[in-house]
């Protein structure tokens, strides 16, 4: 009871502090510089500050021609104000830039800008919906990785999602330690193109650790493909549901069959199913002679992920 009170106290204090900070902020006026660092880029609404995309084209013709082939072109059709249209929807009003003879300091350029400022520009349109809703708290954002680390609006190698490279090479660019996982003999078929990193992880952030996605029923993402192991079962193998698939499997790839964490199946089982003072997990019976067939646990306990017909997962 005391522990529960402690948890709720922490949540309450945190929520109070956050809401106080937020509400006080809504009443304050910010300078132009500060507004760039704010959560949402606030677009100036004065139409006289804007010159239109055709003006940009006169100097940036190559970029404009490419821009015309990208999904962002649809911004030119919007009936909202000029601050939502074409080049200036992202780069901000261009009048000063034009009048300055192309002075780069008079317009927002994404290059060399802090990641948060870059991302804020993009999220102004792209934040809404579950896919991007948690980018603010994503591992990418808090590690100063902005949208343009993966997307290139003007120089995308991949037309789909304007990516700078295709998956999984794009992800390997930073996550160099993961490539070797998918080159092990037993692995998920990421290198073969069957599944992609983003099938399991939400690259834009999420509520679960490792930015994992979940099934529609809010179960482990593994069950999206491995549906027969999802259950619910009359007899559940408890750690499958409480500790997750990764308690026995190495999810990316393994040197061991079935992506298991141990080369010898019986060791994997024995590490938990051992008579011990510190666990109520059933221990192995005395007739499970490891020099005989009993070393091959799953030749009998076939339905090890859960069964509807046998408490020992025989069938």
């Amino acid at each position: 009871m005391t522990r529960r009170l402690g948890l709720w106290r922490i949540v309450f204090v945190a929520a109070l502090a956050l809401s106080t900070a937020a509400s006080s902020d809504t009443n304050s006026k910010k300078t132009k510089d500060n507004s760039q660092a704010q959560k949402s880029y606030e677009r100036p609404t004065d139409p006289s500050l804007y010159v239109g995309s055709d003006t940009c084209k006169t100097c940036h013709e190559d970029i404009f021609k490419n821009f015309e082939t990208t999904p962002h072109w649809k911004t030119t059709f919007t009936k909202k104000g000029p601050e939502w249209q074409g080049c200036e929807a992202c780069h901000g009003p261009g009048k000063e830039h034009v009048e300055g003879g192309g002075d780069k300091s008079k317009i927002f350029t994404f290059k060399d800008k802090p990641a948060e400022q870059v991302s804020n520009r993009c999220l102004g349109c792209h934040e809404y919906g579950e896919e991007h809703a948690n980018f603010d708290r994503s591992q990418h954002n808090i590690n100063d990785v902005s949208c343009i680390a993966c997307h290139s609006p003007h120089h995308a190698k991949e037309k789909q999602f304007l990516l700078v490279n295709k998956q999984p090479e794009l992800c390997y660019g930073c996550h160099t330690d993961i490539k070797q996982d998918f080159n092990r003999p037993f692995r998920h078929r990421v290198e073969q193109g069957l599944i992609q990193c983003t099938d399991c992880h939400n690259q834009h952030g999420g509520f679960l650790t490792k930015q994992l996605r979940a099934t529609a029923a809010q179960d482990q993402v593994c069950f999206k493909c491995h549906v027969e192991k999802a259950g619910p079962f009359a007899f559940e193998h408890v750690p499958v549901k409480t500790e997750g698939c990764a308690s026995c499997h190495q999810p990316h790839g393994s040197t061991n069959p079935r992506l298991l964490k141990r080369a010898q199946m019986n060791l994997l089982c024995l590490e938990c199913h051992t008579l011990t003072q510190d666990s109520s997990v059933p221990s192995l019976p005395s007739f499970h002679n490891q020099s005989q067939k009993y070393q091959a646990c799953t030749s009998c306990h076939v339905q090890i992920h859960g069964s509807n017909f046998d408490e020992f997962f025989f069938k």
Partner: protein
Amino acid sequence: MRGSSRSRPSRIEARPFTLQNRGMDSGRFSWLLLAAILGLLPLLATGQTPNPSPEGVDNGNYKYQGSFEFGYRFVNTNGSQPVYDTFVNQQQGPRLLEQTLSMRSLNHEGVLFDSLFLSSFGWGGDPENATRLRISKNKWYNFNGMFRRDQNFWDYNLLANPLNPPNPFIQVNDSPHEMHTTRRMYDYNLTLLPQSAVRFRLGYTRNNMEGPAFSSIHQGTDTILFQNTRTLLDGYQAGIDIKLLPRTNISYDQFLQYYRGDSSWNDRNFAFQLGSGSPVDAGMIYNPTASQPCSDTPTPIFNTTTMPPTLKATCNGYQGYSRFAPVRTSYPTEQLTLQSSYFRRLDLSARASYSSAETEVVNSNELFIGLISRTGQRSFDVTGPARARRVVANVDFGVTVRLTDKFRLTDSFRFSNFRIPGSWNPLTLSFFNGTTPASMLNPIVTFDPAVCPANPAACPQHGNSAPADVASRTNSRFLGQDSKYNTIEAEYDFSKHFGGRLGYRYGHRTIPVRWTTTTNELFFPTNPNRGDCVGLPLNPDGSCSFSGEIDSEDDRIEVNEHSALFGLWAHPSDTLRINFDMELFSADNSPTRTTPRNLQRFKTRINYKPKQWVNVSGTVNVLESRNNVTDVLHREHDRNYGFTLALDPNPRFSFEFGYNYDDIFSTTNICYVIGGTVPPGSTLCNSGTPFLSGISLYDNKINFGYMNFMFKPAKRVTANLGYNLTSTSGNTTILSPTPNTLGPLGFSFHKPSAWLDFDLAKGLTWRTAWGYYDYNEKSDPGPLPARDFQSNSATLSLRYAF
């Protein structure tokens, strides 16, 4: 089981290809490869211009761009075909290797769509195929469709193998769980009015897996079953997004998933006969000293003078087995999400969902005919319903507050509660011989009160280990988990080049586990006072009844978890990026012995790009965890170090090299039983004989390296050389005496490759590609067939792009 004296006809169904018709002999292969390469050389002399990037074709209101690559793959494999198929499974034949098509409206106002993108690969027989389609029309809709098909071939003989001692009768040389299944996944998503304040989303997914496989069943002895795999999941989604306020979105989604599991199992492995000539399955275990399938004395298990060999009728054996249990599960889920940055310095996101899944097995039937010598059962039939529910309530909440331009506070809270009550109520009818010892040659005798127990010879014969003749059980199970996690972090940007964060995560989990098993049993004579009926009075007909609870448990695990979080990022210059993350975790309990009570995680990533064409990356990823309580002493680590170097100075040359070292280690105290006699000098566990105290050791060192070298020796020629090597070494505790193999803990897997592209004409490219797979285990495979293989594959293809 490819035994010397045993055929396995059902295996043929599981693998329709044979070694002979899958590959080519190496001589023919070499000639073909040489001919293909030589045939292309004259093309070098022609004076065409190199292939420009395809510009597409304008037709009507659309610009079309696309490509397709069609070719033929030659494959030649030596060594273990089953393991090649398990790891690689690329076979010979014509292939549509790659295809893309994009259509873009020139005026961005197409009639049905503004843009379309279609891509495919692997069609024609590769183990992985996919087709992806995206269509959109500005303001009206976005459609994403995807179809994926993967063949899952599995025959790795070390897993689930009983590892019989060498014998002339039963050898399990292949995986008892061999499979050749195909999974087809369909995903379709449609968003209507994607740019409106109110938008609608519809989705449909299907996951279908079918194919032959093998499974096994444990009765008197274990045997291999043919498994006709058939599972299907249909998922539907309908959702709506509403933007009532600026920078605020509310979504509601309704999901319905429906699962059908129609797999069935039966025994088709009747490779022996009884003395009567009727076929019988002796199972996959052969260890007479352990009485599997029975003792070799006083008479041998098999009479080898007959064809097929005759099995001793008092052995464990199968004369028939079938199981059919269609599973139906529905998963309705509703979800409400909120995302808002309405307040300028506050970003929040929340999600609440409720799911109530229900599994039902209405009609199930398991029928066994044969002999279980321990219990004397000659047959049993199990029927009954099973049910389970999974009720899940989740609430997630995340908020970021920008206290200043450089200082942010983030908080993420997660509440998740699931409960899974389940029940299985089987009715089991067991049948016995009228004679002892039980024999598969003797008929089954049913209980007839008119003659039994008055005439004991007319009764079914029951030993003390015989189960009830009629048993109706109620198994009730409950598993739940209530978890709450809260993560709060303070982030500070010291400058535009350097920032960090400090945080704390608290978690609390409660895991209740309960079960009860009650039974109503009827024990017929002879020997009705056996099992649960020992000491109970008999019924008037001489039988004995028992009703009551035979098993129960009520357990509850509580865990409090604490994590300190720390992170740094730095961009000292435009060319250098450094990230560091750290987590220090502590818990006061562990639900399993290997769940850590203490954990430290350190991650460092460095990326250095001194020139536009030079990219150097390095990672250090260290995980240390422990459950250091008495008599568990679980320790493990995963230490990963790697770097890559990529040089891309000009379009005519590029080079990439990477190396990674992974050190995975684990040790845990275990108790186990090995042999009937405790070896001298062994340390016993606290539980005493026959449990021995030991250490489960797992030590795996994995070296991985790769390189790619691309160069253009001539304007129309592009060459690529690649090499990919995984090499492992290590050690592990081996409790089974045979085979004494490290198996996957010590191997080298070489994958060199090369391809050569010739630009024949504008948009037309001829490619000659070669790949080689060389898998070698470093330890003796033991009595099982070696798993090593070498495979050449050559692909000749023509690519056209426009």
